[in-house]
């Protein structure tokens, strides 16, 4: 059974690559990345040998725990349940849950990343063991630790697979991704601010927290290499088996549990819509405002923008490289504005396959211009208050409240510039957002290049056009901020005109580009 699943997994990987150059390139990159991670991880782990034994042990325990966390959270980030690993696809075959668990375990061992992890763990055996018995115990501990990572990861994805298949669950998880990414910045920030004092104390503090978790016990066993170590790997082995049992139970339940996606609530009727002007402009604004709230991709982008600007606010001020003067107040809001504006660099992507509804109505360049104006108005309605909050916070943080004015004006102007540039990239380099959100790619298969060129082009164009107004403000000529908004509005207007001219001529192409199967 196990061998069958391994072959199935290999066949799926091969089938996925057949005839698609972009995917082949992507897979080669994955292989290279995995190989680098394996070799680099192995080398770094073995280098622990050079550290004092107690520091090496602490580091080993923390790193083992970290590896486990990566295994548990990683698959959730890609929402990845590939065909071998999604129990729903196997539910119809006459397999017992135990057979399925064995098979799925075998399938999850197959692949570049488990191999890379094993190599890293073997590096830890080199780095941590202090005796021959340590090496022997270490080999067992490494294999058990890998098994623990895989089974823990499987338990979590299987338990959540019901949720992952519903729309609501995926929406929630998408927002969770932003949190996870922002959270990874926290240790960085803390260290930057000098919280925790001596790094070695910090490390041993962390190590004492994770000490009795199975990964840390595996690491400790390698370093110990004696009877205590044997006892520890025995415990880890028992935990792996127990977790396997939990997995089988969860699997059994997941196969027969009803899909809960049909139980859905209603949305409230918006009272705000009544205030918007009638006609196409109001219609587009109303739709866009709803999408900001309801589309997880949109929410992700907004949260990331605000979160990132917040982090920047802290990190710019601290440390030896901290900014001085007005720039300290202006930069966070400007980064927020840039990140919000860049989301508009593929405006039609969010409509995706529904874009035909607009296309069968629009019969002149003016219609398309109105569409863009509606989108820009909607973004501005939400963004400007956010930028105001960011500006106030940053000005207070910088210790000089009057800086709130240049911060708000500059960032609002920058937002308009980004929107204008984004309108043009939207029609020149349109691409499809994949149906399943994941944290690593933002385009349908084969459109990664277009997506990259689009966002990079938008960033470059915006930065270049923003230099005349943003740079003087950064350098302290705060009065230039007064020009930022009119200048930004002019760029946005020109961008909409140009985009409508190009876009209307190639409306059917646009439609195809954002409706690719994904």
């Amino acid at each position, binding site marked *: 059974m196990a061998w069958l699943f391994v072959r199935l997994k290999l066949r799926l990987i091969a089938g996925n690559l057949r005839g698609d150059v972009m995917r082949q390139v992507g897979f080669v990159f994955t292989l290279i990345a995995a190989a680098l991670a394996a070799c680099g991880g192995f080398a770094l782990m073995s280098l622990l040998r050079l550290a004092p034994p107690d520091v090496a042990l602490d580091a080993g325990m923390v790193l083992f725990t970290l590896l486990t966390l990566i295994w548990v959270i990683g698959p959730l980030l890609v929402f990845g349940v590939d065909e071998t690993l999604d129990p729903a696809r196997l539910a119809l075959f006459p397999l017992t849950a135990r057979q399925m668990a064995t098979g799925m375990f075998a399938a999850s061992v197959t692949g570049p990343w488990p191999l890379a992890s094993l190599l890293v763990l073997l590096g830890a055996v080199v780095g941590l063991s202090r005796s021959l018995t340590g090496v022997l115990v270490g080999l067992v501990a490494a294999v058990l630790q890998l098994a623990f990572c895989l089974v823990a990861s499987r338990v979590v994805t299987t338990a959540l697979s019901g949720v992952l298949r519903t*729309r609501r669950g995926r929406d929630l998880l998408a927002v969770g991704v932003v949190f996870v990414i922002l959270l990874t910045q926290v240790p960085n920030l803390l260290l930057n601010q000098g919280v925790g004092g001596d790094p070695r104390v910090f490390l041993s503090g962390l190590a004492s927290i994770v000490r009795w978790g199975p990964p840390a016990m595996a690491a400790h066993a390698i370093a110990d290499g004696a009877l205590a170590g044997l006892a520890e790997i025995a415990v880890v082995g028992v935990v792996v088996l127990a977790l396997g049992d939990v997995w089988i139970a969860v699997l059994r339940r997941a196969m027969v549990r009803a899909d809960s*996606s*049909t139980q*859905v*609530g*209603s*949305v*409230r*009727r*918006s009272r705000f*819509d009544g205030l918007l002007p*009638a*006609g*196409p402009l*109001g*219609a*587009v604004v*109303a*739709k866009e405002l*709803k*999408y900001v709230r*309801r*589309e997880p991709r949109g929410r992700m982008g907004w949260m990331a923008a605000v979160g990132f600007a917040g982090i920047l606010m802290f990190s710019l001020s601290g440390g030896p490289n901290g900014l001085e003067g007005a720039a300290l107040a202006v930069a966070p809001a400007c980064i927020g504005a840039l990140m919000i504006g860049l989301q508009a660099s593929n405006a039609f992507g969010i*409509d*995706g*396959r*529904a874009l*035909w*509804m*607009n*296309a*069968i*109505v*629009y*019969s*002149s360049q003016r*219609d398309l211009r109105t569409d863009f104006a509606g989108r820009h108005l909607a973004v501005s309605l939400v963004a400007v208050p956010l930028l105001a909050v960011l500006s106030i916070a940053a000005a207070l943080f910088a210790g000089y409240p009057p800086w709130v004015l240049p911060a708000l004006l500059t960032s609002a102007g920058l937002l308009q510039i980004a929107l204008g540039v984004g309108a043009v990239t939207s029609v020149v380099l349109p691409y499809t957002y994949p149906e399943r959100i994941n944290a690593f790619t933002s385009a349908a298969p084969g459109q990664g290049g277009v997506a990259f060129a689009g966002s990079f082009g938008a960033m470059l164009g915006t930065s270049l056009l923003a230099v005349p107004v943003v740079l003087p403000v950064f350098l302290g000529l705060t009065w230039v901020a007064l020009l930022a908004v009119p200048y930004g509005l002019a760029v946005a207007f020109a961008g909409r005109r140009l985009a409508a001219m190009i876009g209307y001529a190639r409306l*059917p*192409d646009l*439609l*195809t580009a954002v*409706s690719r199967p994904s």
Partner: protein
Amino acid sequence: MTSFAAGGGSPVIAGSAEAVRTHKLYKRFGQQVAVAGVDLVVPRGSFAGLVGPNGAGKTTTLSMITGLLLPDAGSVEVNGVDVWRDPVAVKAHVGVLPEGLRLFERLSGRELLTYNGQLRGIPKDEVAQRAEELLKVMDLTGSADKLVVDYSTGMRKKIGLAAALLHNPEVLFLDEPFEGVDPISANTLVEVLQRYTSSGSTVVFSSHVMELVERLCDWVSVMNLGHIVAQGPLSEVRGDHTLNEALLDLVGARGNGEEGLSWLGSARA
């Protein structure tokens, strides 16, 4: 978008007697010719069916007629006006339900209708009233405030049709409107469409379900391998046979079910 058909089905564009006429319509995707010179004709006021096997080019043809796909060659006239030369006149007077169920997923059913109406410049109150009536007829009032992403296939087809009818078009193009629709919803769709054509408006729809085409349509166009192989009033196209038999004759039945599979079924000994 200043004009919209506000009242009854009075034809705004006078002229030809045909609602749709294509001339040598041609489209190629890479090596594959999807539509190879199609001359589709649909008389005004007819309930027309476009039938043919999978891959015959029905969807591609409909996409080119409705201005969603640029033809490589040939021309399309709707009510005597060239679709690609004068899109304003055409787009205001046609309604479309394309293949797949491509809708704005994150709007509720009611919001979707409102959006469509306002995009076409229909006054707000008028849109609200029409939307309410359409939701009622389509039996969607209970789900009007749920997001389209959570709709079932039948509900999506119904809300799509409602959106296509909202501006009271003169010609309605529907690509596989009954695919995956439960019998109750299908019945609703049929009733609405029959009421619509009885006022003199035109419906063009593609389908695999021959019985349905036979029951509803008075005009049939049969496509195969990118060509129109037969076209005319239903009675002429099918002759003395059922439409299904006529189609199999026209397309060339691919009967290869006799050999092999001898093990299949329980009665074989």
